[in-house]
């Protein structure tokens, strides 16, 4: 039995990074279990990039430590052992190389044989959608193409751990869906840590998340737990047109009810936040019927990560505004 078999794919203990007076990362404790697709969330400047750079041994921790499959990151051993694939948030390459040249170099660094490189390079180029541009020099690539190439070079040797910093930030909506699909597939063979500030990206692919704010861990856990714990159930009601009076009295009634947390009235629909999803649904319908409001639509909205995020970080952001 090896250490790697029992150690978490990524572990941070008290990981701290200070740049002069700025505390970029403040005692981060984090464990990413093997095989997960881990969404790393937080507003700009929360410490996501700092964490990833520390784990990729490109920066040095002020204190604390991190490890990749049990191997400490301090001296760059995980890099040299080919344990990580790293994608920078704005990947830059040598302008004179073609995509194939770059992947060939990376494959050689990983010690892949000529035959392995030939087949694997074609495979990853196909996967990230760069086959047609693979013989053009990278100097003429767009930001989105560079990001695709960045992912290709990160996954070339099928590393056990992938550290992806904002891997879809430069892509158009279609490209986003493509590449997020690729990342989801990777979940089968690698552990993926993937930072972003776009919540829907995370909802699409991640099974676990951590939320960072101002260098500190706000919360972490399986996505479903977080949604259950922090997202309030919300119902959306769309009344038929021309019932202003009925709707108005319905809103008044709902606002007075103890099981209603808030009602948002606008854009021809009502958004009703309630304390308890299942029970409130019945009471809500009863109230609608009692007021004689005819409905076009009635649905319980799926709790979204956005709700969780706003509740945890949004509050923090408001505190910050109040302080200044």
């Amino acid at each position, binding site marked *: 039995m090896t250490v790697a078999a029992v150690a978490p794919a990524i572990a941070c203990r008290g990981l701290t990074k200070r740049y002069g007076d700025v505390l970029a990362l403040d005692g981060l404790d984090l464990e990413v279990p093997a095989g997960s697709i881990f969404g790393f969330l937080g507003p700009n400047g929360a410490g996501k990039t700092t964490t990833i750079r520390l784990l990729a041994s490109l920066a040095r921790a002020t204190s604390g430590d991190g490890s990749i499959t049990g191997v400490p990151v301090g001296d760059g051993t995980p890099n040299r052992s080919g344990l990580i694939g790293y994608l920078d948030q704005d990947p830059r390459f*040598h*302008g*004179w190389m073609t995509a194939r040249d770059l992947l060939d170099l990376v494959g050689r660094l990983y010690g892949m044989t000529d035959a392995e490189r030939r087949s694997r390079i074609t495979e990853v180029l196909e996967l990230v959608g760069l086959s047609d541009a693979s013989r053009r*020099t990278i*100097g*003429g690539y767009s930001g989105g193409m560079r990001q695709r190439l960045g992912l290709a070079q990160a996954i070339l040797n099928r590393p056990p751990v992938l550290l992806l910093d904002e891997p879809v930030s430069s892509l158009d909506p279609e490209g986003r869906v493509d590449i997020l699909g690729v990342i989801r597939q990777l979940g089968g063979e690698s552990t993926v840590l993937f930072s972003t500030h776009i919540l829907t990206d995370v909802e699409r692919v991640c099974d676990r998340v951590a939320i960072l704010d101002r260098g500190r861990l706000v919360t972490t856990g399986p996505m479903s737990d977080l949604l259950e714990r922090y997202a309030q159930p919300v119902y959306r009601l769309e009344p038929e047109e021309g019932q202003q009076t009925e709707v108005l009295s319905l809103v008044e009634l709902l606002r007075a009810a103890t099981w209603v947390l808030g009602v948002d009235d606008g854009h021809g629909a009502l958004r009703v936040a309630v304390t308890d999803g299942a029970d409130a649904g019945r009471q809500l319908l009863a109230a609608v019927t009692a007021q004689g409001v005819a409905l076009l639509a009635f649905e319980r909205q799926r709790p979204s990560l956005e709700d969780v995020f706003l509740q945890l970080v949004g509050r923090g952001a408001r505190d910050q505004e109040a302080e200044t």
Partner: protein
Amino acid sequence: MTFEEILPLLIPLLVLQLALMGVGLYDLTRPDRKVKGGNKLVWGLVIVLGELFGPLVYFLFGREDV
């Protein structure tokens, strides 16, 4: 010393100088080429008027993102 006498020795020098200038201008006029300072005209003059050192400085310092 006559001109005819030194001409065969001079030709290789001229060829090298012109080749350098040609390679320099060819590289400079590539549409995706970006140069330090952003002004290709200035670098064009450096390549043409800078004798041997002009193209040298252009190739080793003047280009961005190579």
